[in-house]
């Protein structure tokens, strides 16, 4: 770890100014991932701008939308009555992530910014195109049990990355049509959540579409009719504090047995939270039955591709979709 400059910002503007002038500077909020990365020598920002004092913690009902400040803690959001009532899927996903101690430190903005847990990314002596562009992907012919099955465009070896995004919260946000409010040197903008994270393509080192100096200030989630029938299913190697082998966020709007609306996203399968819009289309207008769910799962799995150690995901993922939809409908 190097010596670094540490500043505490008092306003969003001063925070942005503190970062934008220095290309290596980074914001720090809960620090639950950034500090690990610094300790391991994966990243070494010479300057950290602490944003914890910014007034971005509120959770508010704005009528048609719910606004969650970027600095709201994961545990605060998960326990908030408004979220439990209107967005139980988000609360479930949050509680499925990390440990209680980490959720008490981690912010929603930081959760979105967390980096992959691919072990090759975390060991500077091993190849990783995300950490050291051009060094190759250690996982593609290595131990890839946790790795992606979707979003793998054919690219030259020096760009290959089969890492997955580790967040549970983001899977629910992708399903729930969230938007991300961003303030930056170039002004303020709104990014649809499914456009926030990106596929590796030719730039696996980039996890998302934020520009340098841009600060996440809030999430907005549209009010919906999905709260009664939603479920976050996470399959992992132990009961807590483990990243998903597969996770599924499923939400349905049912009229009788008929599906009016559907939301479906997966975690542990791609470089970004994986929204399954085509599978959702299959569900709409159909009865909420196992046959319908199976059909959707089949559509969801189109284009999936596995590696030596994660072929199980080709079987587990559709089974998990059916299971999550069944529990959501139940």
């Amino acid at each position, binding site marked *: *770890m*190097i*010596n670094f400059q540490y500043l505490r910002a008092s306003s969003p503007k001063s925070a942005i100014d503190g970062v934008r002038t220095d290309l290596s500077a980074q914001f720090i909020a809960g620090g639950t991932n950034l500090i690990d990365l610094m300790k391991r*020598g994966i990243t070494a920002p010479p300057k950290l701008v602490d944003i914890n004092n910014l007034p971005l913690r509120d959770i508010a009902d704005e009528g048609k939308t719910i606004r969650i400040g970027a600095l709201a803690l994961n545990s605060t959001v998960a326990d908030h009555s408004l979220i439990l009532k209107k967005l139980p899927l988000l609360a479930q996903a949050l509680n499925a992530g990390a*440990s209680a101690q980490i959720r008490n430190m981690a912010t929603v903005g930081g959760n979105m910014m967390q980096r992959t*847990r691919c*072990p*090759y990314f*975390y*060991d500077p*002596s*091993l190849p990783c195109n995300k950490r050291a562009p051009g060094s190759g992907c*250690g996982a593609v*012919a*290595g*131990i890839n*049990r946790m790795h992606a099955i979707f979003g793998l465009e054919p690219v030259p070896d020096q760009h290959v990355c089969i890492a997955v995004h580790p967040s549970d919260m983001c899977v629910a946000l992708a399903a729930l049509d969230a938007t991300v409010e961003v303030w930056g040197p170039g002004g303020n903008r709104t990014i649809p959540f499914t456009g926030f994270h990106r596929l590796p393509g030719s730039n696996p080192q980039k996890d998302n579409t934020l520009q340098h100096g841009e600060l996440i200030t809030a999430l907005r989630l549209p009010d919906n009719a999905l709260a009664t029938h939603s479920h976050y*299913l996470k*399959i*992992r*190697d*132990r*009961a*807590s*504090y*483990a*990243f998903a*082998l597969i996770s599924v966020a499923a939400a349905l709007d049912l009229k009788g047995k008929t599906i009016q609306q559907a939301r479906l996203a997966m975690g542990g399968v791609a470089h970004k939270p994986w929204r399954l819009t085509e599978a959702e289309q299959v569900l709409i207008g159909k009865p909420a039955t196992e046959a319908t769910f199976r059909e959707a799962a089949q559509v969801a799995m189109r284009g999936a591709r596995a590696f030596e150690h*994660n072929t*199980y995901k080709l*079987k*587990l993922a559709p*089974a*998990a979709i*059916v*299971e999550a939809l069944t529990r959501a409908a139940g």
Partner: protein
Amino acid sequence: MSRVDGRLKVTGGATYAADNQLTGLVYGVLVTSTIAKGRIKAIDTQAARKAPGVLEIITYQNAPKVPGYEAKPTGQTRVDGQEFRVFYNDEILFNNQPVALVLADTFERANHAASLVTVQYAQAPHQTALRPNLTKGTKPKRADDYLRGQANAYTTAPVRVEQEYTTPINVHNPMEPHAATAVWQDANNVTVYNKTQAVRIAQQDIMKAFNLKEENVRVHSPFVGGAFGSSSRVWPQEMAAILGAKKVGRPVKVVLRRDQVFNMVGYRPESIQKVGIGASPDGKLVGITHEAYGLTSSYEQFAERIVDPSKSLYSCPNLNTTYKLVPLDLSTPCWTRGPGESSGSFALESAMDELAYALGMDPIALRLANFAENDPENQHPWTSNQLRACYERGATQFNWARRTPAPGSMRDGDWLVGLGMSAGIYKAGRSPATARATLLADGSLLVQSATADVGPGTYTIMTQIAADVMSMDPAHVRFELGDSALPPAPGQFGSHTTTSVGSAVYDVCLSLRQKVLELASGQAITTRDGYVELLRQKGMPQLSVTKESKSGSEEKTHSGKSFCANFVEVWVHPVTGQVRVVKVVSALDVGKVINAKTARSQVLGSVVWGLGMALMEEGQIDHRFGRYVNKDLADYHLPVFADVPDIDVILIDQPDTILDPIGAKGIGEIGMIGFAAAVANAVYHATGKRIRNLPITPDKLMA
């Protein structure tokens, strides 16, 4: 009785190895190799030397000489071969091997400077995978091959099972990372504060390495935050701290990073085992064949007791075992809770379950039908054996009777329910141990022995034994351990501290009591004031007795073992492959229970270890690099609280009247022997899927 050191531990008052802040302390951080085999071509320490606070950087080029490293291996060491020599030459023998020690005035500065050291290697091809190298397996010098009756007799049996079982590398991962602080008082006197299960062994190892006399080496390790075998010999952190302290003439502390704990302090080696087992239709065993392969380093042969449970657990006229070790470019494995027995019993007890299904017989009935009245390995009578009571009381408590044998026949809602069981056996014995008991002028008792308390409650148990013999209030008894200058005791491993040191404490206190009786002319003294008065009258500042205790002829005439029966209920989700252990009953024969609380805790720990071994623990090495990929506690999965079910511990609590004067056997390991098989057997009962390759993760159940 509650732990006497409980308050110290929870209030931070207990001094662990890394807590020693000596005056003038220097911090050492290890730089480690990034290749598994080859040579160091060049080490560039220039940038690091210029970094603020750096005092010195030690590599093989400038390390103080270690005389013991030049000595030819004697064959007398506990692990056969040439120990790993720290900063000795340019050779790389395993990945993450220490190649330099950066010494600085603060930990942060040492750590930063360590990141500035660059090493160039001439890489050589390495081999780290067990299976492709099985043909290189050889019989270890300390061979474990065994035959009684006819070899491979199982093949002639009417009902038989023949299967291969594998267990992966398991890493001890104690909560406390390994640490050592060393200080040289002068050119010939060194003191080391480390994390060890055996201060005397550490002292002997250091004496040999530096050609020093016993009085020149002092090792302190009063508190240890879990060890499980990983602190039973001197490792690179001790040697690095000693060499660093020698080089800079100040105390040096070296603490391993979590990833270094994976490579530098041993691990449970991977195993590949073939078990053939045959029986007559009524369930009488005809023959057992157990062939095991383990792995070791290229420089030492670490052999473990992997086939031991097979030799003694069941009455079986024909039995043959072989054990081969494959040398690989990895660091040397070491003893890991139930070393060998835990892996070997997974194979044996899985095979017994498979046999029970092949016979259409209840797994407990099969085991009872083959109950061994004597130790089948040598025909010696047991010192004690309550295994039948373990089966009976465990089955009752667990309600085994509710089990319908057909796989997949029990459900609870969406979940498949499985009930599985297994048996376990583990050596029970004692080693010579010496204790000193001193009645002090204030009427309190000080008892001392160079044993350890790595968590099982040794401070408490010894205090209790002494207080009992002396009829004293335990509050007036103090027990000291973890100092090499104390009367010698064996290391705290092999589940024999209570039998060895406990017997020594018992014996020495008996002697002291006798002396007191003599001094008091036959008047029994029962109060603290009475002791004060006696010493005052006799003009004695204190009264001290030192005594060695050891086993007698019973060691040759009897066989000492602890026993257990493990019962596990799992729920398996048919869609997601998730396994939840919902109920455990462990029934154990450990002889007399000295302290019910700490004994129960030992079993809870063993069960949690067993759950980890069965369901999630696996040290994963990318063999292209010969390097661990899951070398932290996020990726190397140990059970968390949410994984731990309701655990019922049944201690049969019948004294062993032969093994030792206090009636105890051992309890530190027996609870995990066979445990992983009980989980696998329950998973089979739930699903009909027999998982023979640990750990049982959801992907395997989905396959």
